[in-house]
């Protein structure tokens, strides 16, 4: 991590005590003052960004941190003049370049903005699977900005494209340049997009959530790459993220945004160690941390073998070939405890969770829940009173045409409770249990926020009083403050109802917070299993170690080693 060391000294060199005073800074590349953006829809104006000011120095990384709806992407979009329809900059300036000949980006019309985009400002978009033209080769996409800005002739452009692909770590650039996006993995696609963004060596790179769609080990490599390129090109990076841990690891300074307004800004180190604003404090305390493991209450010892998974294998067949998504996984789980299934996408963790919940029969091996064999019981309705599944996406798991009261009451209806009043009474009871107000019962899912919807999904799962809940990435789609609320709700419910959880997640920090025991899955194999603290503190398998070391952590204090 040599480049990080160099960068840090860089940063210290440029750091002055009056760092927060944006107006008097001389090395600033981008100076934004009083930026306000409003969206108008159906005649109603909504303030998305409210008087935001910041300075980005040459060679510096500034992270804009905020939850969904905080306006962080809107800031980036207004800088490159690509606000969606209905969005308008209502005030402010954004000067790019040396003070002598700085350009106000917000004053530029589309025509004069075009020479800036790609040449002086490069954008790394959020979702690598959607951001490349599917009918064009990868090489074509990388060369696009050179073509638009008429750089070189066809031959030099091709040479430069191959150079760029090699630089961002694409193996065999000759061959890859002729391939189409669907032939590349998510990480490779993000590398291609980075190559396209730096093709004309821009002085400012805007990275809008560049890794939030990627696995944690891939995320690390991509973030390293962005860091390296920044030093090489002496570019500045405006890094937009919801992930405080990523921001803390990669940024020199932070801008914490909440509902469009700046809550706090300054050197990353300072904000992380001594946050001044209440919202920042809340954000920091809600972010699940690997540094301070939470204290778990002891597991009740009523039934140490409540869930037994024994040699479970699941194959997907297509025609004559078959593919083992889960290979020979075994673990036991005590009643009232939480077992986490951890792995990256494609590791088989969801397939395993669904086999435990009885949604498909395993190809080999067995699962017993409370002494009942799942494979033989899974078709009986009674089994559903014992095991329930909570889905990742709270937007897709609730029927959009039913009211919340009907959704929560429906399982009761399936089990012969005909009386509407009785169902409603019990639905209200469950809603109260998950801390939703009574009037929620008459609302439709689309009138609720993501966190509220996930509470409704949990209430629906609980209304039958199951013993085991399979939580499939149940908090992954939520903002960190909401995530913390749902996690503490899950812990409270576990105590109240003596629930047992199978917690499926890719997020190790969350897992450490909630799980008693953990299984790490890689390509369908259970590479490691045991008590959470043991696995986290002394991982034995190299994959587990790779996963753990890929997790972003704040940079150590400059005084440290």
């Amino acid at each position, binding site marked *: 991590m040599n480049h990080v060391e160099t960068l840090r000294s860089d940063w210290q060199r440029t750091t002055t005590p009056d760092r927060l005073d944006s107006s008097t800074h001389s090395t600033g590349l981008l100076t934004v003052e009083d930026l306000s953006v409003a969206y108008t829809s159906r005649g109603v104006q909504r303030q998305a960004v409210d008087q935001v000011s910041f300075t980005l120095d040459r060679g510096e990384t500034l992270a804009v941190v905020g939850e969904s709806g905080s306006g962080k992407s809107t800031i980036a979009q207004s800088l490159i003049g690509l606000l969606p329809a209905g969005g308008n900059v209502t005030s402010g300036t954004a000067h790019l370049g040396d003070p002598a000949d700085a350009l106000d980006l917000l004053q530029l019309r589309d025509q004069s903005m075009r020479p800036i985009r790609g040449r002086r400002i490069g954008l790394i978009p959020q979702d690598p699977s959607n951001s490349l033209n599917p009918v064009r080769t990868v090489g074509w996409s990388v060369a696009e900005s050179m073509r638009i800005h008429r750089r070189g002739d066809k031959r030099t452009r091709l040479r430069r494209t191959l150079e760029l692909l090699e630089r961002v770590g694409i193996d065999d650039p000759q061959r890859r340049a002729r391939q189409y996006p669907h032939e590349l993995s998510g990480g490779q696609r993000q590398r291609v997009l980075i190559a396209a963004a730096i093709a004309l060596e821009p002085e400012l790179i805007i990275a809008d959530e560049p890794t939030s769609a990627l696995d944690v080990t891939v995320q690390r490599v991509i973030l390293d790459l962005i860091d390296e390129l920044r030093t090489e090109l002496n570019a500045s990076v405006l890094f937009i993220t919801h992930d405080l841990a990523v921001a803390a690891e990669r940024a020199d300074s932070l801008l914490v945004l909440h509902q469009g307004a700046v809550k706090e800004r300054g050197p990353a180190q300072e904000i992380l160690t001594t946050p001044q604003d209440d919202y920042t404090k809340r954000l920091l305390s809600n972010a699940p941390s690997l540094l301070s493991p939470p204290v778990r209450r002891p597991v009740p010892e009523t039934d140490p073998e409540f869930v037994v998974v024994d040699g479970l294998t699941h194959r997907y067949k297509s025609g004559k070939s078959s593919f083992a998504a889960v290979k020979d996984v075994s673990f036991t789980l005590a009643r009232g405890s939480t077992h986490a299934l951890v792995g990256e996408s494609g590791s088989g963790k969801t397939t395993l969770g669904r086999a435990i919940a009885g949604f498909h029969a395993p190809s080999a091996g067995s699962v017993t829940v409370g002494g009942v064999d799942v494979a033989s019981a899974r078709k009986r309705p009674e089994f*559903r009173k014992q095991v*329930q599944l909570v889905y990742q996406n709270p937007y897709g798991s609730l*029927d*959009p045409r039913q009211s919340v009261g009907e959704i929560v009451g429906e399982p009761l209806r*399936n089990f012969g409770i005909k009386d509407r009043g009785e169902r409603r009474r019990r639905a209200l009871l469950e809603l109260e249990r998950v801390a939703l107000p009574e009037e929620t019962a008459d609302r439709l899912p689309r009138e609720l926020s993501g966190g509220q919807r996930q509470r409704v999904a949990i209430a629906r799962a609980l209304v039958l009083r199951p013993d085991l809940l399979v939580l499939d990435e149940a908090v992954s789609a939520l903002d960190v403050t909401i995530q913390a609320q749902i996690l503490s709700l899950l812990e409270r419910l576990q105590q109240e109802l003596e629930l047992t959880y199978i917690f499926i997640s890719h997020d190790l920090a969350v897992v450490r917070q909630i799980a008693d025991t953990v299984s790490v899955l890689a390509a369908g194999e259970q590479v490691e299993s045991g008590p959470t603290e043991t696995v986290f503190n002394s991982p034995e398998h190299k994959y587990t170690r790779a996963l753990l070391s890929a997790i972003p952590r704040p940079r150590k204090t400059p005084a440290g080693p």
Partner: protein
Amino acid sequence: MSSVATVLTRSRKSQTGMSLLRPSVLLAFGALLVSVSWALAPGLFTSYDPIANVGPSLQAPSAEHLFGTDSTGRDVLSRVIHGARETLTGALMAVAVGFLVGTAMGVLSGSSHRSVDEVLMRIVDVLLAIPSLLLSLSVIILLGYGTVNVAIAVGITSIAAFARLARSQVVQVSRSDFVEAAYGSGGSFGTVLWRHILPNSLTPVLALAALQFGSAILQISTLGFLGYGAPPPTPEWGLMIAESRDFVATAWWLTTLPGLVLVITVLATNRLSYAIQARRNA
């Protein structure tokens, strides 16, 4: 119900109502309302008998006879108004046949075993392979002439479209998490189908029904024009246009005015159909 909830439900209704209150939609709705009331109570709109001679033949439109008179001296407007019943009930029956049979086939094939799906979809392929006019003519020749038979024949030609759309909707909705969650909370196949899959798949099928209503009017009139529908002197729009085609050069109103009414009605149903779709997508 608490006051907060009532306010919420009210605002929800006014919001979804928005797209249905556009001027063009209101206009279309008005046009349909007129033709439907003609069909329900023709006596309120005209005092002339549609099949009796009420004046000299081939009179141009005048204050007395707004649409003029035809070759045998019958009032054209009165015939158009009375013809609405013939045409609209026919179209309604045709859509009902297509909608009920087609949706049932589609839902069945989208939700049952693959072998059932294969058989039903191949039947649909066969229906789609035959041009719709040829198909409806063949059905009429099997069943015999007459308004009801024409409606059934036209309905049969639209079964394939309904079946395909319903199937694709059912397949799509069946894959969603909330359907699996419903099975997961102990729901049986029938209850999940009735409570979740059907309500969430039917909106586009209903929009197609509105669209088909317009094209059924056209098809019934086409068959009437060819002489397979109601026998003369029944006032049916297609038949009226057919009967007066010899006078196109001398008496323009005989073909133009009933034709205009026909076109306006069809356009109005199409506009309503799009409005239903747009509301669903909003």
